[in-house]
Every structure is written in structure tokens, then in C-alpha cells.
């Protein structure tokens, strides 16, 4: 199993370690619920060094990214970032990504899911339009700092005024001699950001964040709470809401697809599926009766006919309620529609509800 630069730090913080996408990662430290609420109320640190990074450089960098991704990379100026998708030739999704513009037209960093890193790297090489590609995944450690106190903590440790940055901006600095890119992005719905830092200095940054965050109630957060935090925001997770056969419009990701602006892999089938009209929609729901929805459970109308399936489900620590995300036939997607989720053979009554499940601050 692969280890992140923070492996020993996790063991020192008494993390419970599990295998995730070929990496040995902390699933939790003191407890999922406590960690989750600490991010909502104070601040938490996440080791996301397992995420992959692909560098795209040279005179054909922009052309290559325009072809590989659905969003319009051309509008990115230096220091801006963009959520985007890697479509396949059939109009499904290879991955969802963030593109960071380091130098317009010629230098971009693409952050990809750990579970897809090898596949994405092959995909980039196969569909390259002349860019200089480097798999920098081993070069970078990555730490996310999220929560109401995150800006204060980031400022204390690095001097970066994150509170003055709009979402999806980056700042490149040198921190104690190490190359660092800070991005005002995240996966929890809270304030904060994510650091890319040279692998060898990642541990130093982690310990500095822990130390300077003591009176801000900082806490390391495991992958368990990372998942419940993103589920409360209805953020997609590859392998759950989206995969190789997903229709990105059904997934609610049409806002990052720009067919008017450019040509890209799979554009024809993606546009055709949009024009045909959506038959399914990705919704959020809460159970009314007792029971917790989980991935792959089936969704039904009140007569018992199957109308869809669950992509993610959990007990929401913030709401103390069972919540789920799933695809349903579009006519069941209106807020307030009553549906049922099959939990071990019992049809548990549920209701389609507003998302994010949590009100954004």
C-alpha cells in the first residue's frame, strides 16, 4: 500500500488506518461524528495527499486541456481554478477534476481523484494534443484546511490572507523554503482552502497547522467525516454519483459543460443526450421513517415500482437525520415528492428535499 508524506503523523495522532484506492489512509481519529462537527463548528485538517496531480505545460497546454475537459479553460487567468470533468468518447465521465491555471496558455496543474490517478494519466497521454505532460502525484503533498476558523489558521501559519480571496483562486508562495500553492477550494462547504506543498515539507506544514490551531480547536479529520461532510453538501464523489456511464447533465453538472465554447472529447454524445431531454435526475432526500439509505439501495414510488437508486447515503451528523443522494425518474424530482427507499426489504418512506442538505453559510 502507498503511504502519504503524513503517514507517521497519522499514527502519532492515533488514527485508525484503512486501505483507500491503494493508499493507507486515516478513516478516523477520535470519532467520525466529533470530527465532522469540529469542521462545521471550528476547523479541521485533512490529508488529501493521495489525490493525483498532472502538470500540463508548453505551447499546446491550453489546446490539450480544452480537448480533454468540458469546462472552458480559456477563461482562466493566472491564479484562477476551475471545477471540470474529463469526458470519455461515449459522453460518460473518466473523472471530475480541478484545473489550476499557473500561467495562462502554458502551465496548468490538474488535480484528479486518487482512485482514478493511473487511469487519468493514461487518458491524458493517449489524448494529448502536444502538451508536455508530467505526473507530479508523488511530488506533491496536499492538506485541506476547512471550517469557520480556517482562514484565521491559514493566516497564522502561512501569512496568506485567504479571507480576501474569492473561491477558486490560487496563490503560489515559498513557505520555509518549500514550494507551495494555496487554493481557496474545498469539499465540505465550509470556509478554507487546500495546500499543495512539496512532499518533503508536508509534515512540517501539518504540524505547524496543528500547533498554531490549538486555541482554535483544530483537529485532524479522517476520510469518514470527509465523506459525510461532502454528502451533506451533495457534492459528487466519483464512483458514487458519477462514473464512466454517467450523463453529466443528469448528475447536475451541466454548469461545467461548455459545448458552445469549444470542441472536446465526447461532445457529440453529450450534447445529444442533453437535447434528448433528461429522463433521470440526481436528487437529495431524507427518510421520514426510521432507516439509513446506503449506496445501491433501490428507490421506489409509493406503489412500490422502482424509480431509481441511491448513490450515497448516511446519517448526517449535523442534522442528526438520515439523508441520501440518488437518481430518480425526473418526474419524481420535485421538492416534497414522497418516495420510498428499500432498506433490507422494507420500503422506508422518504421525501425529496432541498440541497445542500445543510444551509450554506
Amino acid at each position, binding site marked *: 500500500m502507498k503511504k502519504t508524506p503524513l503517514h507517521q503523523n497519522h499514527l502519532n495522532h492515533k488514527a485508525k488506518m484503512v486501505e483507500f484506492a491503494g493508499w493507507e489512509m486515516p*478513516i*478516523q481519529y477520535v*470519532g*467520525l*461524528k466529533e470530527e*465532522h462537527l469540529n469542521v462545521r463548528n471550528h476547523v479541521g485538517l485533512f490529508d488529501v495527499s493521495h489525490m493525483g496531480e498532472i502538470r500540463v505545460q508548453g505551447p499546446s497546454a491550453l489546446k490539450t486541456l480544452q480537448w480533454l475537459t468540458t469546462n472552458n479553460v480559456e477563461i482562466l487567468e493566472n491564479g484562477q481554478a476551475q471545477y471540470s470533468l474529463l469526458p470519455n468518447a461515449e459522453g460518460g465521465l473518466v473523472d471530475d477534476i480541478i484545473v489550476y491555471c499557473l500561467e495562462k496558455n502554458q502551465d496548468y496543474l490538474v488535480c484528479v481523484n486518487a482512485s482514478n490517478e493511473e487511469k487519468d494519466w493514461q487518458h491524458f497521454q493517449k489524448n494529448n494534443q502536444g502538451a508536455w505532460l508530467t505526473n507530479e502525484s508523488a511530488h506533491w503533498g496536499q492538506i485541506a484546511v476547512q471550517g469557520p476558523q480556517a482562514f484565521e489558521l491559514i493566516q497564522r501559519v502561512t501569512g496568506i490572507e485567504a479571507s480576501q480571496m474569492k473561491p477558486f483562486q490560487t496563490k503560489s508562495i515559498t513557505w520555509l523554503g518549500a514550494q507551495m500553492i494555496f487554493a481557496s477550494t474545498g469539499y465540505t462547504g465550509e470556509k478554507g482552502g487546500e495546500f499543495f506543498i512539496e512532499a518533503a515539507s508536508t509534515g512540517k506544514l501539518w504540524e505547524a497547522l496543528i500547533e498554531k490551531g490549538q486555541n482554535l480547536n483544530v483537529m485532524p479529520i479522517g476520510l*469518514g467525516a470527509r*465523506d*459525510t461532510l461532502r454528502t451533506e453538501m451533495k457534492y459528487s464523489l466519483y464512483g458514487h454519483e458519477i462514473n464512466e456511464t454517467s450523463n453529466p447533465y443528469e448528475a447536475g453538472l451541466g454548469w461545467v459543460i461548455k459545448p458552445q465554447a469549444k470542441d472536446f472529447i465526447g461532445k457529440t454524445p453529450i450534447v445529444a443526450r442533453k437535447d434528448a431531454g433528461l429522463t433521470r435526475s440526481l436528487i437529495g432526500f431524507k427518510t421520514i421513517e*426510521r*432507516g*439509513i439509505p*446506503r449506496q445501491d439501495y433501490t428507490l421506489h414510488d409509493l406503489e412500490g415500482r422502482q424509480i431509481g437508486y441511491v448513490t450515497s447515503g*448516511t*446519517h448526517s*451528523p449535523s442534522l442528526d437525520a*438520515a439523508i441520501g443522494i440518488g437518481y430518480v425518474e425526473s418526474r419524481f424530482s420535485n421538492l416534497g415528492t414522497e418516495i420510498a427507499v428499500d432498506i*433490507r426489504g422494507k420500503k422506508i418512506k422518504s421525501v425529496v428535499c432541498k440541497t445542500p442538505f445543510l444551509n450554506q453559510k
Partner: protein
Amino acid sequence: MAFHIPEDYYYTKEHEWAQVDENIVTVGITEFAQTQLGEVVYVDLPEEGQKVTQGTSFGVVESVKAVSDLYCPVSGTVIEVNTALMDDPASLNDDPINNGWLVRIEMDSEKELANLMRAPDYKKLIADK
């Protein structure tokens, strides 16, 4: 970590305990199981009168992250269900050995007890984890 493992209870390899009083068997999960699960947020138990079979699932406990089946230590009929757990699942974490009992079963045959572990063997089982 030191777990409370009563000497007079029987144990399954899936970490349920069984306390036998003549032909009435009270069933719960062990402290070890409780710590592995994390905070319990949901408990699904059978109804009174339901028949259950040794070694098969008779319900589930769920933490935020995971669903775990409960396995029946003995075959028989459910005669009492700890319904308080349904309203306060977290109490299972506080006291799995006593107040956190799940069901009481009228056992069909005490011969089945031979298939269960006693405390020393169960201690060995979790020592290897």
C-alpha cells in the same frame, strides 16, 4: 484496551454475547464490537414472536459509516426486544454488556450452546485483532 468480558456469558465469532438463564437467552454485542463500530446511529431489531436461527442475521446496527449484521447465537423465538435502543441507539455504545442488550430469545435447544465460545476463547479471538 481492556474489555469487560463476563465469564458467565457465551460469545459468537461475530462478537455477540449470550447470557443464558434456563431457556431464556439475552443477546447483545460485545464491548469490542462496540469500539469497532464507532457511534451507533441506528438499530434494526426483529419483532416479538419472530423465529430466529443460530448463525443467521436477526438485525443490524449502523454507525454513520457502516452497516453491520447481527448474528443470532441460538435458534428460538424472540420474546422481548429492547425498544429503548431504537430511540437512543447511542446508548449501545455506553453499555453494550448490560443496558444495551438487544433481544431476549426463548431458545429451542441448549445443545446449540456448544457451538458458542466461552470467555477465555473469546478473549483469545479479540487479542489477535
